[in-house]
């Protein structure tokens, strides 16, 4: 099954010549050819440390990933490093690559991945773990870290899922916790020195374990008690710290990446210039791992945002700007940012979008700015819980009246469609909580018809199954079994359709509970779960985030085979509530959150008690800032969006055109346009 690894040393040969004849035989070949605008190809010899950055999913999903794009640029700016990108190849090409001995390659220079010094893999979701094994195998890299030698790349895992990397601990050499901008440079320094000194793999890893934020799983030993729980996770060498603390990048204005966004030829899921307007979130939604592990809030200034948008649009040509964060309307200067950008790009065919907005932070003025360029398709809100009680449990404080008021205003102002996101299977949830989603959806349609003065308004209800995540107050919670989730969703569908007149304006979208159970296994699993991941991959499992590839039966069978001999099973990892004194597999990995605070917040959840946001109320001691030496960074930034004398004039262009870029090559000596414009 495995592809032979190329010989290391010297510049590796491009696999393009061998790949090209295979491409006419696969679906969407353009995703494998590279050559994106703003991609970088550095001569191999010009760098001491070679990084292959991997997003373990299809190109169309992986290319727009901001994290990967940022690190790609940060590393390629270093004179001693080069970074190339590699993505999961679809099964049609994978089969041909195996048949013809073509190894996993980077899309930049089509170099074999096994020739690089570091293979950095970014995990946004745990469902990418089987793809990691597929990629390693296609690359000719031994699956198990223990079987690798100095000839093989260091396999590194990062991203949100890496905050509990234990299920893949056997397959990776090192893990990075938290923001990557600075730590990739420190790792590069260590690897460069290790190569120069001719250090062995073990010595190199020990040295890397000394870099703050780096966790080397092989330097830790895990012991278990008879009931299946962990006794302790202990470093086996003084080179490894007892606890590994996450990294935090302060002052986003110092890190204006991506400066040169990658513009692919292939179609991808997000075709826009994305600017991260802040990182972190202290809204405190108890289910939200992203909000918990990225604290504190660090805003980019409005000037910083404006400059990134200007530079990014010129470099990419994109016609949409996405202002990204975990809750974009919460930026302290969001109104000025949206108005400033809308003014500036008026008439240039440039759209603005705010992918994550909260009901309570939404206001029509903001929405009007965002849709000034034309589109007014739909608004999305995420109440997450159907009942008021449940929303207190999850700390998503939004009242039904507030929601109805907001959507009514939206319908009044011309929107015709509202999307509502919910979760099912939340702690303490009953059938009644979920059925209230139907009531709310009916109410939204009723209010919308009244506000819009017409019957054709639409509400789409989208529901995902809740998965308890590490480093959240719900890390101790029992996950709801798939049949419980599926049963509630069935009842919800009946309730929505019980009123024909309202029900026909409500769309319901949901996924089965089964994939979520597996995500739950991988999220809160320990090292023993690695055997299940490997068994599933050996059984042909991959692309588990895609419903057409995911097989619950395969996972269930592998878990039933691999886990009981170790004294545990699928239910033990998923539907079992944990006690306060149980050692959790990720307790030695520090996201900054105080374990005592998390437990108290979990108890507050069970009592339906809410927690405020520390941006606007006093600190509630979650532990992050003192532990990490960080602080909240929010506006007002006190700077204008446009630096005096530096920027282009803000006057809108005379007529509707389709470019935000002023090219001096076209301004000199142009003759007047003939009637009706001209075509070239």
């Amino acid at each position: 099954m495995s592809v032979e690894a190329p010989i290391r040393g010297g510049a590796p040969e491009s696999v393009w010549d061998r790949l090209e004849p295979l491409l006419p035989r696969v679906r969407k070949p353009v995703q494998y050819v590279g050559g994106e605008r703003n991609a970088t190809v550095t001569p191999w010899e010009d760098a001491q440390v070679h990084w292959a950055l991997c997003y373990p999913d299809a190109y169309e999903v992986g290319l727009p990933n901001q994290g990967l794009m940022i690190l790609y640029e940060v590393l390629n700016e270093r004179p001693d490093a080069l970074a190339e990108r590699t993505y999961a190849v679809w099964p049609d090409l994978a089969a041909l690559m195996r048949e013809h001995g073509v190894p996993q390659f980077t899309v930049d220079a089509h170099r074999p991945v096994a020739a690089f010094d570091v293979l950095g893999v970014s995990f946004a979701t745990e469902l990418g773990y089987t793809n990691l094994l597929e990629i390693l195998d296609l690359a000719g890299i031994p699956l198990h870290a223990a079987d690798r030698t100095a000839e093989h790349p260091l396999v590194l895992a990062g991203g949100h899922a890496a905050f509990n990397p234990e299920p893949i601990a056997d397959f990776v050499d090192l893990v990075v916790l938290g923001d990557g901008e600075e730590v990739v440079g420190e790792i590069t320094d260590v690897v460069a020195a290790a190569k120069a000194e001719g250090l062995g793999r073990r010595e190199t890893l020990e040295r890397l374990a000394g870099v703050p934020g780096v966790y080397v799983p092989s330097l830790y030993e895990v012991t278990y008690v008879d009931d299946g729980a962990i006794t302790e996770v202990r470093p086996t060498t003084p080179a490894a710290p007892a606890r590994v603390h996450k990294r935090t990048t302060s002052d986003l204005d110092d890190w204006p990446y991506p400066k040169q966004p990658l513009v692919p030829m292939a179609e991808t899921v997000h075709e826009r210039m994305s600017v991260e307007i802040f990182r972190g979130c202290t809204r405190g939604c108890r289910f939200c791992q992203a909000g918990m592990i990225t604290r504190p809030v660090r805003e980019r200034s409005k000037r910083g945002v404006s400059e990134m948008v200007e530079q990014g649009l010129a470099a990419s040509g994109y016609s949409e700007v996405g202002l990204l964060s975990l809750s974009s309307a919460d930026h302290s200067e969001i109104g000025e940012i949206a108005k400033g950008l809308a003014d500036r790009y008026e008439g240039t065919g440039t759209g603005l979008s705010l992918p994550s907005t909260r009901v309570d932070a939404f206001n029509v003025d903001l929405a009007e700015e965002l849709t000034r360029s034309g589109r007014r398709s739909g608004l999305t809100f995420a109440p997450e819980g159907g009942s008021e009680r449940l929303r207190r449990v999850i700390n998503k404080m939004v009242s039904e009246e507030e929601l109805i008021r907001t959507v009514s205003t939206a319908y009044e102002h011309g929107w015709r469609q509202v999307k509502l996101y919910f979760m099912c299977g939340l702690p303490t949830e009953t059938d009644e909580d979920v059925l209230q989603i139907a009531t709310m959806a009916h109410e939204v349609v009723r209010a919308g018809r009244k506000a819009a003065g017409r019957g054709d308004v639409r509400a789409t209800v989208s529901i995902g199954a809740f998965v308890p995540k590490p480093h959240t107050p719900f890390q101790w919670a029992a996950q709801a079994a798939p049949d419980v989730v599926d049963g509630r969703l069935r009842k919800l569908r009946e309730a929505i359709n019980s009123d024909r007149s309202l029900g026909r304006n409500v769309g319901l979208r949901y996924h089965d509970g089964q994939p979520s159970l597996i995500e739950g296994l991988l999220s809160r699993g320990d090292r023993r779960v690695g055997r299940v991941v490997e068994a599933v991959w050996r059984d042909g499992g991959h692309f588990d985030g895609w419903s057409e590839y995911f097989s619950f039966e395969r996972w269930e069978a592998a878990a039933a085979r691999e886990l009981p001999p170790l004294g545990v099973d699928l239910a033990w990892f998923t539907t079992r509530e944990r006690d306060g004194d149980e050692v959790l597999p990720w307790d030695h990995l520090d996201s900054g959150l105080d374990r005592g605070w998390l437990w108290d917040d979990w108890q507050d959840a069970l009592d339906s008690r809410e927690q405020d946001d520390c941006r606007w109320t006093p600190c509630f001691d979650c532990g992050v800032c003192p532990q990490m030496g960080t602080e909240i960074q929010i506006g007002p930034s006190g700077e204008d969006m446009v630096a005096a004398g530096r920027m282009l004039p803000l006057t809108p262009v005379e007529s509707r055109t389709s470019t935000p870029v002023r090219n001096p090559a076209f301004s000199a000596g142009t003759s007047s346009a003939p009637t009706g414009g001209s075509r070239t």
Partner: protein
Amino acid sequence: MRFAKRGRARFSSHRDVARAMEWALRRAGVPVSLSHGFSPHPRLSWIGAAPTGAASEAEFVEIGLTEDLDPAAVAREVDAVLPEGLSVLDVVRAGPGALADRIDTSVWRIALPGVDPERLGKAVAALEAAPVVEVERMTKNGPRTLDVRAALVRLDVMDALDDCHPDDAGSGDDASGDGARPSGDPVEAAASATPEVSDLRARPRRSVCGTLSLVVRHTTPAVRPDDVVSALRTVAGLEPPVPVTATRTAQGRLGASGELLDPLEVDRATTGRETDPVRHAGEDRPA
């Protein structure tokens, strides 16, 4: 605008090329006019795009502008920001009449590595002798049957052995610093492949190679180079051992005496010839 799709860009679809061109025009600061309505989009009018996998030296697009610009400047500025593999070849100021009305025929060159030219010649003769040659192709609307013979104006076997891989030979990519490009020399490329790698089947000896020159009328659905290869399989059992590479070398209207008329010539005549086509190193321009 006439532009080329070469090298690895040949694997892009029409949608891919259209998006890439729209973004490139925005990067270059070309003031393209926008359609009116709820969701404004740039006014670009595309003419019969080369299929995914095929290269082209003759793709055409009409671009609506809000200002009158120097065509040479447009060619230069857009070419500078196009992704690797896409190159502007010619820009003229559009005169009256639609470009689409001046294009009804394509000239293709198809390289068939591993196919003996003599064998190819016999297959071509068989195809030309048949009154009707139907092949089936999957389209968005299910399988369609099309008559290749009816669309065929001319089909010749070229005897240029060194022209076997037109995609590499004429690539002339504008990206710099790309040390990983495949070698343009087919012999060297074959020789440099590591012997233990089991892809020798995939790359037959390059010394054997058939090349076709093909003139085909635009029909609906269009007869593509792949369909012609399918037709050769149908009439003569010809099975290329590896995927063929096709390059469109010209498009235009078929003249009375079988010559192809340059579709941009009319605009040059009406607006004056003020542009020099952008030339690229190693470019293989058809007459």
